[in-house]
């Protein structure tokens, strides 16, 4: 039995010191819904677990002049119960809600989903589309990092050994803005995305898109932020021509592998179909036509 120590520091400084001082592998614990499974399978063998949930501010949501700050370890169930986030960022809420079961929702966090760095992570395409900023803390202090710069490959991130995410910042929304996320799975619950797609848009009074961010999940080694999809939307209404171009841009960006969840050809096709559906929901929401959940 190798010795495994545990600490639940109550300050950022104490947590950073523990991470920096570890001789072997140190793992940050938020909800543990990935970490505990990986430890049990023997895929990670940490020397120390640093439980960050007792650090002030790391769990909870605050609104500041229309912008939101979500604590990195806030459980999915808490995010989903937040009325302000449901109104401003329904795509992020519905994406996070797709992770696992009710039981998993009681623990899983945005930071865990991002730092587990699975290309199929459901909340991550929504965070990319939202332009979320991760507030990263470490020995050198605090830095703000666009979320799309955190994952670097399957299971790999750009965070240093002594770094972890303290919170996420979501910008204030202009009028007529909204977002949406859909994933495709062969059933309705408890599965991992074959393809995921997140889109966030701002429209003008005539329904013409003035700003967009689009992302695809499970079609590359990391979630992709796809500028070509956004470029197709900006300056246009969501008519048949725009939808066809968006579909083509999504298919062109998708670089999937074939595995048990689907062939590369299938995933590429589904990326285009999902992009059309997600754009329709995001545009409707931004125009005030629908605010309901998509699943």
């Amino acid at each position, binding site marked *: 039995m190798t010795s495994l120590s545990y600490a639940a520091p109550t300050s950022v400084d104490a947590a950073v010191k523990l991470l920096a001082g570890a001789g072997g592998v140190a793992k940050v614990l938020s909800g543990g819904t990935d970490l505990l499974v990986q430890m049990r399978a023997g895929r990670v063998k940490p020397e120390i677990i640093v439980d960050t949930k007792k650090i002030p501010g790391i769990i909870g949501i605050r609104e500041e002049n229309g912008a939101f700050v979500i604590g990195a370890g806030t459980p999915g169930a808490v995010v989903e119960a937040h009325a302000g986030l449901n109104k401003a960022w329904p795509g992020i809420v519905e994406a996070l809600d797709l992770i696992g*079961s009710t039981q998993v929702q009681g623990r899983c966090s945005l930071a865990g989903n991002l730092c587990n760095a699975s290309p199929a992570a459901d909340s991550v395409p929504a965070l990319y589309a939202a332009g979320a900023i991760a507030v990263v803390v470490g020995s050198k202090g605090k830095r703000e990092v666009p979320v799309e710069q955190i994952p670097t490959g399957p299971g790999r991130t750009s965070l240093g050994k002594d770094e972890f995410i303290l919170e996420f910042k979501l910008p204030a929304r202009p009028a007529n803005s909204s977002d949406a996320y859909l994933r495709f799975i062969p059933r309705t619950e408890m599965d991992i995305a074959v393809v995921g797609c997140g889109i966030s848009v701002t429209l003008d009074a005539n329904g013409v898109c003035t700003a967009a961010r689009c992302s695809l999940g499970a079609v590359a080694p990391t979630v992709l932020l796809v500028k070509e999809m956004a470029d197709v939307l900006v300056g246009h209404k969501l008519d048949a021509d725009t939808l066809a171009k968006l579909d083509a841009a999504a298919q062109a960006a998708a670089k999937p592998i074939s595995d048990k969840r689907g062939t590369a050809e299938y995933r590429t096709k589904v990326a285009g179909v999902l992009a059309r559906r997600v754009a329709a929901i995001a545009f409707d929401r931004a125009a005030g036509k629908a605010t309901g959940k998509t699943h």
Partner: protein
Amino acid sequence: MSKSHVTTTINGEAAEFLCETQQTLLDVLRDVVGLTGAKEGCASGDCGACSVLIDGTLVCSCLVLGVEAEGKSITTIEGIAQGDHLHPIQQKFLEHAALQCGFCTPGLIVATKALLDENPNPTETEARYWLAGNLCRCTGYDKVIRAVMDAAAVMRGETV
């Protein structure tokens, strides 16, 4: 390897235990505390047989470290009945024969308790989605859902 000393509350009573870091809350409940109602099915958070409440939130105890129980309030299946009186959820599971082998039943009952605490009047669809993380290989789920909907009605004070 030194063990951690954990002070917590289990089913309303103060409790303390010693555990190693890698022991899950499920390991601790079953092997240290001696509460064997919560079951280990998958040990990966997929089956829900180990469901417990932590400060009222439904979780898989196989995905929680024992040391994380410090200062928390844990509710297990052993804390659902009131003395010798079965909880209405337990009573309705019996009446509807919502079990065969019974392995998933503690988790289903704890998960149903969490559902009805939060939403006393769920639709059948809401109940099915809420319980999607509790796998049962015997019943085909229909009897479970009938028991849940019936228990909800009883707990709302409606005569059934």
